[in-house]
């Protein structure tokens, strides 16, 4: 079974993002970029499935500027077998990504797609669900456990109030939550091997997809700064403030 793993290049999670002065987005010039952490978990899960003998090949896919090849290379160093880069300078939104992935799925015919539940840059949490709808495949989102049994994927999902276990007919889409696994560090021999693994570069037009954005970004702004707290002298005073000032009780 082939596993397709989409990986997104995002601002590193350790970087404190800064909003551009014109409010058109966040600064990415000169900022450290990395693979989206949820996608790292997806790559790790795919590699573990291959190590168990469930999967035969792992294909890492990234989309965007040529620098996205670095993200694919990281996935290859973690254990993916080959990569596909959909190169475009158009700003990609979840629907366009889902359409491009659908076209790649038609070409590669994977049995499973494992992808991050969301990217830490825009927190959209949409691409996996959109792709499932476009393909008409089953989806197991927010997975904290994944087991393949025959032609079914048993997915334990983290939902409000507990865990839900669903059985999905393959092919299916699984989106990863934080507790699914702890991604491995790429070893030096694997980093060296990754250099020789192939990355195919294609354009959206090759897939017959128009990636033009459908949503208009109005503005990006910093969240309001927190004001200093107030010390109250008694519980009675606290209750009074919650009633009269905060008006929450």
């Amino acid at each position, binding site marked *: 079974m082939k596993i397709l793993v989409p990986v997104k290049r995002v601002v590193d999670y350790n970087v404190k993002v800064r909003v551009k002065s014109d409010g058109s987005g966040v600064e990415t010039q000169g900022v450290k970029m990395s693979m989206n952490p949820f996608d790292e978990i997806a790559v790790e899960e795919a590699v573990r499935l291959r190590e168990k003998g469930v999967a035969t090949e792992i294909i890492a896919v990234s989309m965007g500027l040529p620098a996205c090849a*670095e993200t694919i290379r990281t996935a290859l160093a973690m254990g993916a077998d080959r990569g596909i880069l959909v190169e475009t300078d158009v700003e990609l939104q979840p629907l366009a990504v889902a359409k491009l992935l659908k076209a790649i799925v038609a070409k590669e015919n994977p049995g499973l797609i494992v992808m991050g539940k969301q990217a830490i840059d825009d927190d959209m949490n949409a691409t996996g669900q959109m792709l499932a709808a476009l393909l008409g495949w089953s989806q197991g989102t927010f997975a904290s456990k994944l087991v393949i049994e025959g032609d079914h994927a048993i997915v334990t999902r983290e939902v409000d109030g507990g865990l839900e276990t669903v059985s999905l007919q393959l092919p299916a889409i699984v989106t990863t939550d934080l507790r699914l696994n702890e991604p491995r*560090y790429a*070893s*030096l*021999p694997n*980093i060296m091997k990754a250099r020789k693994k192939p990355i195919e570069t294609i354009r959206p037009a090759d897939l017959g997809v128009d990636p033009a954005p459908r949503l208009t970004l109005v503005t990006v702004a910093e969240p309001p700064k927190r004001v200093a707290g107030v010390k109250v002298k008694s519980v009675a005073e606290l209750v009074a403030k919650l009633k009269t000032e905060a008006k929450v009780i």
Partner: protein
Amino acid sequence: MNFTFTDEQAMIGETVRSLLAAECQGSHLRALMRAGATHDAGRWRKIVALGLLGSLVPETVGGLGLSACDLILVAEACGHAGLPEPLVETAGIALPLLAALPDSSRAAAWLARAMSGDVTIALGHPVNPFVLDADVAGAIVLVVDGALHLVESAEATLIAQPSVDPFRRLFSVSAPTSAATMIATAKAAAPVLAAAVNRGALFTAAQLLGLAQRCNDLAVAYAKERQQFGEPIGSYQAIKHHLATAQVRIEFCRPVVYAAAAMPPDGGMHAKARISHAKLAATEAADLAARTAVQVHGAMGYSWEVDVHLFLKRSLALANAWGTPLYHRERCAMRVFGAPVGPAHTFAQELRHD
């Protein structure tokens, strides 16, 4: 000539930096100190799993056959984290030394064990007065009358020596040696020991560079947080100019260290001078950054409540490891006064190792 690291070199450095950022924090080092230990077995296993130990060992004997340039960012990351385990000493110095002795089955056997991470090898080199980590090593390489001997630690007598760094235990070592323990004659050992000095000084310089950056990072973070007169102390020129001066020293040191790593192993006098220059520049950068960090932290800088003391001690220890500043100044002087200087000669030398 390419002046940048390859994607793979950058990725190796980044991987080690990420691992150590998670596994070698100040709290981990304090716990180790409280336990009276110098190494953490769990962290060492994770480091071994990265497959770095054989990076400078030729492929013919099971290594990866990489160059110093491939490991320099790793050494820098180790310095930045204040890593107590001997990754740099093992992968960068001890194992390449053993691998350079192909005629010794004894050396080959210990090399294989050390590459698997089962044991570490301590190295007693004439340039260092004492042997580092001899108490936790499986075997020790000693120089006796110029010849190299490899003795098992259990057979050696160790006398602990004072060390400024609690994670770098130093020992005087004596052990019975014989033809059976010898792994290289004096004649065969001389070039191997000379190469070990160069690798030792180079990777120590890289560690000092990382350590200098860590000291300044700690000081900058504290200067942004600590407030006086209603403002972070970093907003005052009396603080920020000192931090900027330390950062400038670090930025001027970085290319010197990287250039030394790019020198060919057989670069002769020029390579020696480059490496010694790197060691001197990194020692000075680490010294300035560590002292500045102590001052910026004020009274806290003198306490054990913040991490600065760990890095100050490491910088003091590394300053004299693999050659004192005087030793390295002499090697630079040999290059300056012993070989023609000027653009024609300098660049001719550069082009030879393009």
